[in-house]
């Protein structure tokens, strides 16, 4: 049984002001195995974030079934950790309290909360900053807190919606390396939304290329280049060429259609 099963997912947004419906996701079928690092790759507006939000339970599909660990997704829950595009931390809580927020909601005492959160502070390299508020830390550090917060819940899957998009190039590279290291160490299932071909190829072992309007899956590419990945190696370039050709085909099709 796959960790995430998407069956005939259709999402229609009704644009009430213009009185028409917008088909955003058109019959998505996808199986994501446990411990996969899947990148959903596509241009903006292709519905990849919507798909992630449906798995997270933030949005409901118009039709189709979403199963996580064999259970139907109906609402958000701590079995699916989400890392948002913006860190989305509670600004009134310190780093450690943000990370341990899930435990607080479960009624775990403060001492135990902090003890368990310290492991994740170390994991994301924030020792020494555990009592800082989000406003006192950089964007990259806040996003680390966001990742640690999702990991602490020990979810079956971690859903990430372009979490590094707002970071500068160098921080982004560091964070990508760290994320891969964390994934290798903790063996979790990650679904990572991105619009960057390079980012998808650096991170994923399965890259799901999506098409624009309506969002469909063009091809799911398996990519098992050993890590750490050399982004200048021929294998990397071959894969990149293949994915770029898929995207290019797509834009010619759109250009002809219009």
């Amino acid at each position, binding site marked *: 049984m796959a960790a995430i099963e998407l069956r005939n997912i259709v999402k229609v947004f009704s644009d009430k002001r213009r009185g028409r419906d917008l088909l955003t996701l058109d019959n998505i079928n996808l199986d994501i195995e446990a411990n996969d690092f899947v990148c959903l790759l596509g241009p903006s507006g292709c519905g990849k974030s919507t798909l992630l939000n449906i798995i997270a339970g*933030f949005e409901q599909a118009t039709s189709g079934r979403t199963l996580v660990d064999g259970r139907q997704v109906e609402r958000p829950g701590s079995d699916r950790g989400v890392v948002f595009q913006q860190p989305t931390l509670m600004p009134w809580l310190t780093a450690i309290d943000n990370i341990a927020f*899930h435990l607080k909601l479960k009624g775990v005492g403060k001492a135990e909360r902090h003890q368990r959160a310290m492991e994740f502070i170390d994991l994301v390299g924030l020792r020494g900053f555990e009592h800082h*508020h989000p406003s*006192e830390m950089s964007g990259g550090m806040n996003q680390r807190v966001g990742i640690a917060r999702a990991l602490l819940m020990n979810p079956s899957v971690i859903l990430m919606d372009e979490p590094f998009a707002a970071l500068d190039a160098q921080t982004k590279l560091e964070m990508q390396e760290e994320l891969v290291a964390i994934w290798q160490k903790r063996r979790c299932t990650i679904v990572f939304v991105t619009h960057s071909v390079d980012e998808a190829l650096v991170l994923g072992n399965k890259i799901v290329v999506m098409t624009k309007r309506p969002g469909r899956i063009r091809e799911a590419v398996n990519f098992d280049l050993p890590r750490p990945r050399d982004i200048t190696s021929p294998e990397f370039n071959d894969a990149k060429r293949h994915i770029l050709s898929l995207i290019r085909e797509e834009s010619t099709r759109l250009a002809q259609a219009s």
Partner: protein
Amino acid sequence: MTSVTDVSPARPTFRLTRAFQGLERLVVPALLIAGWEAFARSGMLPPALLPAPSAVLHALGDWVFGFDETTQTYSGHWLRDALASALRVFGGFALASLLGILAGVAIGWSRLFEKTLEPTLQMLRPIPPVSWIPLAIIWFGIADKPAIFLVFLGAFFPVLMNSIHGVKTVDHNLVRAGAMMGANGRQMLTDIVLPAALPSIFAGLRIAVGSAWMLTVTAEMVAVKSGLGYVLWDSYYFLRYDIVLAAMISIGLLGYLSDLGLKAIMARTLRWQQTTTVQGRAG
């Protein structure tokens, strides 16, 4: 009355310039007082109509300490008068804060309360609190109650409006993050929405404490026989303008102190936000 950004941020200052700023601040008040003293002594107006600052200070001193009974029956009674007013302010303000926050959060959070409660409250809001005085007197008589009622009316709406605004503008993604971490409905309110709305709620409380002082004085002028406002109005009948001014100064001072106290509580509660402003300014 419904402004929501009344939070004055701390300004980054260097130690050297701070010393000068301290002096700068005194220049304008010192000039004003000196000018006023000179004008009052020049004899262009009878001293009864424009008492000099020294005379006002004398009256205030006697009112507080009762050293030579210039203020006659009020001599030495300042503390009692101030306390009477302060208790009314506190009573009305506490009641308004409690109900204002409760109703505001309920309206901001729940569609049902928004639909049922808000139209009525919004209709009552434009009625000036002072216009309730006749009703307050026949309902509550001449005592503390009508004053507390008026203070409540004046303080309730700023708290209400800012609480509604604070809850309604909570970052949608914070709510999503809370749901992702498994917050139930009650936790969503107490652990996410309420703390996120606090800056706005405090802004409302600060506006409200100002209105509270304004209204307690108004109420004391007509509906109560004690307090700073009563002394002010009573002294006006006897043309004791020095006491009138001393009362005005007392009210200003107490209002300022209440705001200062509220600001201190706010600074403690919203420490996380203060760092934002300081860093935002400095960076």
